[in-house]
């Protein structure tokens, strides 16, 4: 069961990679990055149960947080063109 899950996750990872490579717009690529981060979290979790040592689940949680903050930073950058506070830029 876990093996099937790992195979499915790797297939999804390749599709996300394809989208990041081909993606015509910026948002396709940001979405691909986000999907890829989520798949990494899932891969870590499933690998933990596949090898019988789910000790690194908290690491997967940290990856999820990191992915979330990273995507917010990238989206904000794509909107404003810089990381400074937009209220101060006016």
């Amino acid at each position, binding site marked *: 069961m876990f093996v099937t899950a790992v195979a499915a996750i*790797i297939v999804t990872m*390749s599709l996300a990679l394809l989208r990041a*490579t081909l993606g015509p717009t910026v948002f396709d690529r940001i979405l691909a990055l986000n999907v*890829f981060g989520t798949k*990494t979290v899932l891969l870590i979790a499933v*690998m933990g149960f*596949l090898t019988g040592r789910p000790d690194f689940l908290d*690491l997967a949680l940290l990856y999820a947080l990191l992915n979330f*903050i990273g995507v917010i930073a990238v989206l904000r950058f794509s909107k404003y063109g810089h990381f400074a506070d937009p209220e101060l830029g006016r």
Partner: protein
Amino acid sequence: MIQAIDILVLALLACTAVSVVRMRSLWAAVMLTGIYSFLGAGWMLVLDAPDVAFTEASVGAGIATILMLSTLALTSTEMKRPAASPVFPLLIVGVTGAALCYGTLDMPHFGDPNSPIHQHVAPEYLKDAVPTVHQKELKVGIGNIVTTVLASYRGYDTLGETVVIFTAGLGVLLLLQGPRKAGGSDGREEGAP
């Protein structure tokens, strides 16, 4: 089974690297390097190196992506076509890679407990760092093996690494600040009430 997963993840890593190199849009290249870092971190976790994996994820996918994007704000987002032909550099890289692959044939198997790296100083470190029934008093007195090796046996090494990383971070931050505007110190006070 784990080996098949290793091969698949490494194949994805190679695909990502090739598409980063071939990508003309630098924005897309930054996104792909983020993907590369996530993949690398996942693969290191498969290899049982969670500390390295976490560093790779936080530095590679987190900070490096943001720093690259800040750099893109200062430069253009399209890569110029290189004028020179890439055949000769490709040849050099191919030969070097083949030599490195040939060199790995002599290396001990991954995780082999009898390999020289696990027989040289590691047993002594383990003996001095872990409290046992016979030896309550430790030579170093820290109690955690990784901390003992990093902070005591390799203390100067770690200090040097930290200084190098601090200097590099300082340099990057100074570069990303951009050209200083004439007049106001950084232009922010002007808009403040």
